[in-house]
């Protein structure tokens, strides 16, 4: 399916390219521990400049979702699931994403999911699929 591609910058590049080695990375303050997403270079809590990408497991929980039926653009394949997930080991960090590799009707709030990357030009989009085990 066609998708808009993010423009990379020094701030967002670690997030959008983390999937190259299959590991999701979220910026975290090395001083106060705050997960900072969307990414910033300075911690909005303690103002430290030591905010670096940190690997996370990629496990998440579906907080909410919607099944999009409207073909907003002619090349879209509908229906598809858009969701907001919260990362299990980065509490408070939510990602808007797609839930894939499962029947649309099986998606539910509270569902355990795990990251799966979709390569797209030079970025790797973090999508989510049902967690195994």
């Amino acid at each position, binding site marked *: 399916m066609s*998708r*808009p591609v*993010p423009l990379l910058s020094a701030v967002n590049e670690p997030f959008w390219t983390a999937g190259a080695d299959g590991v999701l990375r979220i910026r975290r303050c090395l001083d106060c521990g705050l997960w900072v997403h*969307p990414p910033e270079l300075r911690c909005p809590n303690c103002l430290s400049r030591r905010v670096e990408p940190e690997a996370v497991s990629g496990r998440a929980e579906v907080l909410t979702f*919607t099944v999009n039926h409207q073909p*907003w653009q002619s090349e879209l394949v509908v229906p598809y699931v*858009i969701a907001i997930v919260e990362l299990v080991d980065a509490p408070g960090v*939510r990602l808007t994403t*797609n839930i894939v590799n499962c029947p649309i009707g099986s998606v539910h709030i509270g569902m355990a999911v795990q990251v799966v990357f979709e390569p797209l030009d030079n*970025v790797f989009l973090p999508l989510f699929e049902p967690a195994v085990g």
Partner: protein
Amino acid sequence: MSVATTEIGERRAVISGVGQSEIGRRLFRSGTDLTVEAALRAAEDAGLDRRAIDGVSTWPGGQGVEGMSPTGATDLKEALRLDLRWWSGGSETAGQYGAVFNAIAAVGAGFANHVVCFRTVTEATASAQMTGHTSLVGAGPGRVTGSAQWIAPFNAFSAANWIGMFAQRYMHDFGLTREQLGQIPLACRRHAALNPVAIYREPLTLDDYLAARMISTPFCLYDCDVPVDGSTAVIVSRADAAADLRKPPVRIEAAGMRLTERFSWDQRADLTTMAATDAAASMWARTDLRPADVDVVELYDGFSFIALCWLEALGFFPKGEAGSFLEGGDNISLGGVLPLNTHGGQLSAGRLHGYGFLHEACRQLWGEAGERQVPDAQVAVAAAGGGPLGGCLLLTRS
């Protein structure tokens, strides 16, 4: 929440007149042409010569973009050759009413006496003339940047997607049903039948609603507002400059705006609430009036669920109890305890992007709403914005 200042400064301002242009689907008129029509009607309504207008305020400001923002403050200045002492246009505000809040501040500061606040849209014509949708985010050519990069790559282009996810979570947490949510578009349609300039006026039944095609769950077609062309103008005047105008002005009892939570569509801690919650709380902190004093509410319904959020945020029922409040639709209908969107809302009267509600609230307080008049309306709330955008006004009859 306490009020930091000793004075409720918005009471130095009043609304002295309102006006609307022709409103319709695909009018093929320019945004500035529509804006001039609305502004002149508002000036006439107030009893002001146009040369007395010394301020202009608009949202989201002129960006030369047909559709969402065809006309800016300086376009109106040029079109009417106004002598402006103050003007402003921009979108980084507490929702669409930011232009009104700015005008209130300007007359309070003495920068201007009579400020025309306007919102003009030509979305229907723009979508007819182009292949794309003007309200989609991140859907244009080229790579996405800024906040759109966090949603557009997942093909979440529309507010229907973002707001739909809030609605889905509310349904999950509190048991709201589609039958209950559907009472909002049904009530709007009943009210639109009494508004000669509404877009959709034919009856809409619950069966029609439940059978309509899905846009983005849980929203079907009738949960989504209708893009139109049109302009609304509201004149904010300094209270002591409005004493001798054509009619007693509408008083601004309190304004509500607050940005406490993350400015984001997906990072808000409680995904069953919106910025509306913070705006409403800040409004009530600035007045002795209470929700029970309100006679009529005109609340943003770009999607049905946003109006539900505003009703809850404003305290008309306890958190989570929207379903029972909306059940059957009587509470929110004309003749009910809290008539909602008496002109038909954006769902049936068209997406005037927040300003249709403010226009209708003033008409109700002036007793000018014709067949849809709420008897003896004294206190009204107008609110605009969804997600991280939100601002509201508590208005009273003089």
